[in-house]
């Protein structure tokens, strides 16, 4: 990336749960690390998330979910991204996700999964190291 290039990350909340405190904390940490963070609010459909991510030309997409629908929603999002030319976006997941589900999600194109209590520093560093 060029020296003036600022990393752009979208933090999105797919699914029906109504809590975004965690997502906001991470969004702030990414901003404080010098990134531009697009936050779209609660209860977004995969279509809405992918449309926004493409228009915003983000380098990374962090999906935060507590509702348990990740096995359905995450792969749907990565599939839509591939169909629409967003396959280069670094997609990560966070929230309440059982250990057993992680391999399947990674197979579906989720590059990393952050469990509850992951420090924001870990997430910030992962984004820094993996956006191209």
């Amino acid at each position, binding site marked *: 990336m*060029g020296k*003036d*290039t*600022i990393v*752009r990350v979208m933090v999105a909340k797919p699914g029906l749960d109504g809590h975004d405190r965690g997502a906001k904390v991470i*969004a*702030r940490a*990414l*901003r*404080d*690390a*010098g*990134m*531009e*963070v*697009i*936050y*779209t*609010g609660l209860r977004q*459909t995969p*279509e*809405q998330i992918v*449309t*926004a991510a*493409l*228009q*915003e*030309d983000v380098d990374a997409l962090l999906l935060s979910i507590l509702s348990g629908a990740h096995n359905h929603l995450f792969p749907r999002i990565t599939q839509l991204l591939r169909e*629409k*030319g*967003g396959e280069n976006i670094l997609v990560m997941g966070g929230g309440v996700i059982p250990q057993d589900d992680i391999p399947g999600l990674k197979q579906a194109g989720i590059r990393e999964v952050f469990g509850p209590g992951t420090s924001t520093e870990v997430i910030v560093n992962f984004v820094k190291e993996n956006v191209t």
Partner: protein
Amino acid sequence: MTIIEGVLRGNVRDIARLITIVENELPEATAAMQSIFSHTGTAYTIGFTGPPGAGKSTLVDKITLQLCRQGKKIGIVAIDPSSPFSGGALLGDRIRMRDIITEQEVFIRSVSTRGSMGGLSRAAGDIAKILDAAGKDVVIIETVGVGQDEVDIFKTADTSVLVLMPGAGDDIQSIKAGIMEIADIFVVNKADREGADGLITSIRQMLDLNTAPGPWRPPIIKTSATQNEGIEELLKAVQEHREFLTISGSLAARRKERLRTEIIRLVERRVSRLVQSQIKQNGRFEKLVEKVAAREEDPYSCVERIVKPLEQK
């Protein structure tokens, strides 16, 4: 297909990438803007400005939805402030633009000021041009909600809408006179709250005080964006202002003035870069600074020494 061709066809991925190129001032940015310029000038630009939380994003959402129903293609540039400490930014205008997020013909781009003052980002004008070239009929720009001095929008938009709300902005004195004078349309949003009529009265009084009123008297539109009220009236006011500008010939004049300002700005940037690279190139500069610091020379003669040779070139 090149990225330019893609943009001209309205391809989302290409529009998004070109905006990134321009925002980051990548080497190919100038050539790209050169090739799209002849395809610009058809979109109508509307600016929304006003204090933080007045309801700008919510209004843009509702207005865009109406325009979509009329078959219009809309581009939106939503600007939020960047953090002076980290250079990062939280861009949250999309939270209030949910009705239009999956409309086929709507393209929303969130940008940060990247340190620019005046409520816009340096690239905002170019982004508006890209959306224009991509075939959007209307381009809407939402400035940051700094409230006091976001005057740059008036140089970038055809119609400027100043959004106020009762309560916080009750005291009309708190809004700088300059902004009040330049707004083409006033919106008193959150009319569902107490104090809207009082605010309208004080705006009207202020407009009456103007001793040299122009041919366009800015209307005051009462809206309640969350209730979807007053949206039709606001759109009608924009349409009337557009007709006024067109018939009076001011639209062409405004746009020409805008281009004049833009060319001057571009020249300044270019010259300033040239000067900086010259200064840094020859190590003499640091020595001059040393001398000034030691009070052996004053800053003004130092400037003379630097600029004189450049002027002679």
